[in-house]
């Protein structure tokens, strides 16, 4: 899929992965590895999607998306990051793409808070209807929440694609892009290991895994 035909599909995919994080259906579509792989396939550059997804997935391992806490939304930003990386060499594309994904993930986290406040205002306005068991109020609130979150996700994807257009006009110099690549790969590894270590069985299992992974990588 190329050119203008892919744009609405990418916007739709970004909206879907944004919805998936909290509202519906929480089917792991919003995981960076999934969001990026599909975006890469849509763009005809699966490798770009897989590699951007791998690095951002490690950052996502450091995130615990529970309850009322604030957490980044990686999905729509990952779609835009894959668009930025597609068709570029790795030393030029990986760093700027992942950085764009990280910035948009943080913006996305803030935007979730806005959606929750809009939902809260609607709930307060429907307080009497909810107490009386009005099924129409329940249905209306559900659809309002879904629609608002869909609009948030679409807006975030659009913002990301506009940033990609801007980057194409003013790309980073090769040396800077390469430095960014080093930083995001290192940051991803630190994020992934830190995220797992602070809430799991501890470093001895991680060290075991590091040895295992290192051994496999050496043999491969």
């Amino acid at each position, binding site marked *: 899929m190329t050119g203008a035909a892919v744009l609405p599909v990418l916007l739709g995919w970004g909206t879907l992965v944004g919805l998936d994080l909290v509202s519906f259906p929480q089917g792991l579509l919003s995981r960076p590895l999934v969001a990026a792989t599909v975006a890469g396939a849509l763009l005809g550059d699966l490798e770009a999607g897989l590699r951007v997804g791998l690095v951002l997935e490690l950052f996502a391992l450091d995130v615990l998306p529970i309850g009322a806490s604030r957490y980044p939304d990686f999905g729509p930003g990952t779609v835009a990051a894959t668009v930025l990386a597609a068709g570029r060499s790795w030393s030029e594309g990986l760093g700027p793409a992942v950085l764009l994904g990280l910035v948009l993930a943080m913006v996305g986290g803030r935007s979730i808070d806005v959606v929750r406040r809009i939902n809260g205002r609607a709930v307060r306005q429907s307080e009497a209807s909810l107490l009386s068991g009005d099924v129409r109020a329940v249905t209306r609130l559900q659809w309002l929440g879904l629609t608002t979150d869909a609009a948030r996700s679409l807006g975030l994807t659009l913002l990301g694609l506009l940033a990609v257009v801007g980057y194409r006009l003013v790309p980073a110099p090769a040396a800077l892009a390469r430095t960014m690549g080093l930083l995001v790969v290192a940051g991803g590894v630190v994020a992934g290991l830190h995220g797992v270590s602070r809430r799991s069985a501890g470093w001895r299992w991680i060290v075991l*895994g590091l040895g295992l992974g290192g051994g496999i990588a050496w043999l491969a």
Partner: protein
Amino acid sequence: MAGLIGAPLTVARCLALQAAWSYERMQGVGMAWASEPALRRLFGHDPDRYRAALGRSASFFNANPFLAPTAVGAFLRAEADEMPPAQVERLRTALSGPLGALGDRLYWTGVVPALSGMAVCGVALGAGWWPVLALLLVHNSTRLWLGHWLLRLGWTHGPMVGVAMTASPLSGAATLAAIVATVAGTAAPLMVTGSALEDGSLADWGLVAAAVLVAVGFRWLRGRRASALKFTLAASVVAILWHLGRA
């Protein structure tokens, strides 16, 4: 004991449990949305009872969304057994905390990072998009099956569902932690050597230097609410400014 009619629709609606999430009622509206078809079947002949039960179901509730069908089932059982409203409310409150804690440990620190870590390993080893497809299939099929099972568990045991949960294999979720840690540890070197650096364009001592910089800096900032994500962004801003200064 009558069976729970329309369980698949209830499980399907549980997928949108958090659509109207708000700080006021958290998942309350979603609980009402999920319970509504079953309440209509239970009390369709008695509009007053149906509306009263639906009103109660929309009150404050918060638990892990993957385990929430347990609470939906228990709530429906309590309503079907004509439990006093105050007791129904207490049951919801009592289930909220344990289902949140157990579910977060099972899913957000267990199943999800384990599956995504395995997918990262598979992709980094060159398996293409198959590990991603496997991740989606395994997660979503087990989640739907588990949702159905938990709804039945809640419906069958009603107010005693907590005891049934404790006796179930789900309470052993802590054992997943070792698997997650090992998988994440395995994924890190595979990702670095097998994928991001495959063409050799980034593979030099610069990566080691960047990793040490990020790790040491992040370690230093840990007590100040820093995350690796924010630290990476900050380090990148410094790099951009440095490059601009040199240009």
